[in-house]
């Protein structure tokens, strides 16, 4: 017979219910990325070797600018969630684990915001 209290038994083991959000977020962004990535690849092929003026003109229609923004949002969110799992799986030292998780979040938000701002600036005329 165990003498541990119920609270003692679950401490540090139980689910905080955040897993479902993470799981859904990864799947929803994956689903959204399927058409977005295909669109992006086809567009890139047409833009190979384009100069700045051509690229600016291409990006300045609202449809393309908004699609690019959606692509950026989905990509960086998906990447944040994905890299988080990889860090959690392989980095076991508590200090490094938390350091890398914080860096991952900051880097994804920073790169995503910079990319989004760049798209908006170019789309609105450089």
């Amino acid at each position, binding site marked *: 017979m165990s003498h541990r209290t119920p609270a003692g038994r679950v401490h540090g083991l139980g689910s905080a219910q955040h897993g479902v959000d993470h799981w859904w977020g990864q799947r929803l962004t994956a689903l959204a990325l399927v058409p977005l990535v295909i669109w992006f690849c086809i567009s890139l*092929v047409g833009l*190979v*070797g384009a100069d*700045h003026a051509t690229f600016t003109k291409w*990006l300045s229609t609202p449809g393309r600018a908004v699609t690019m923004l959606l692509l950026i949002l989905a990509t960086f969110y998906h*990447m944040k969630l994905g890299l988080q799992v*990889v860090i959690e799986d392989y980095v076991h030292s508590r200090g490094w684990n938390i350091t890398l998780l914080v860096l991952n979040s900051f880097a994804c938000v920073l790169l995503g915001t910079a990319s989004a701002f*760049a798209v908006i600036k170019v789309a609105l005329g450089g």
Partner: protein
Amino acid sequence: MAQVERPLSPHLQVYKPQLTSVLSILHRITGVGLGVGTLLLAWWLVSAAYGPDHFEVSQAFIASWFGRLLLFGFTYSLFYHLCNGIRHLFWDAGWGFELKAAYSSGWLVVIASIGLTVASWIAGYASGGAL
């Protein structure tokens, strides 16, 4: 954190690599690789926002042999991860778990990802020429 002896993953080196296990780890490797690729994407977009001079620098880097090598790795990773990601989404919906199905969808991913990569590079060279 409670210290409990949890079951550990088996030692991978005593297992014969199988199509399913290799594709599984490739999904993770390409996922991390795509993360590196997004650095390039962000740089490219930001350079465009800084104007023609900066854009020329990033375009020239991408057109260099090293840039093309990176881009080739990026496109292959993207198509592999895309195709295998769709395979994952079918599993999430409850389809394709039988061993035979897992193997056929696995081979389909291998063929489709190589085919799409080659096709996009042919299309790229044919359309732009400059890269």
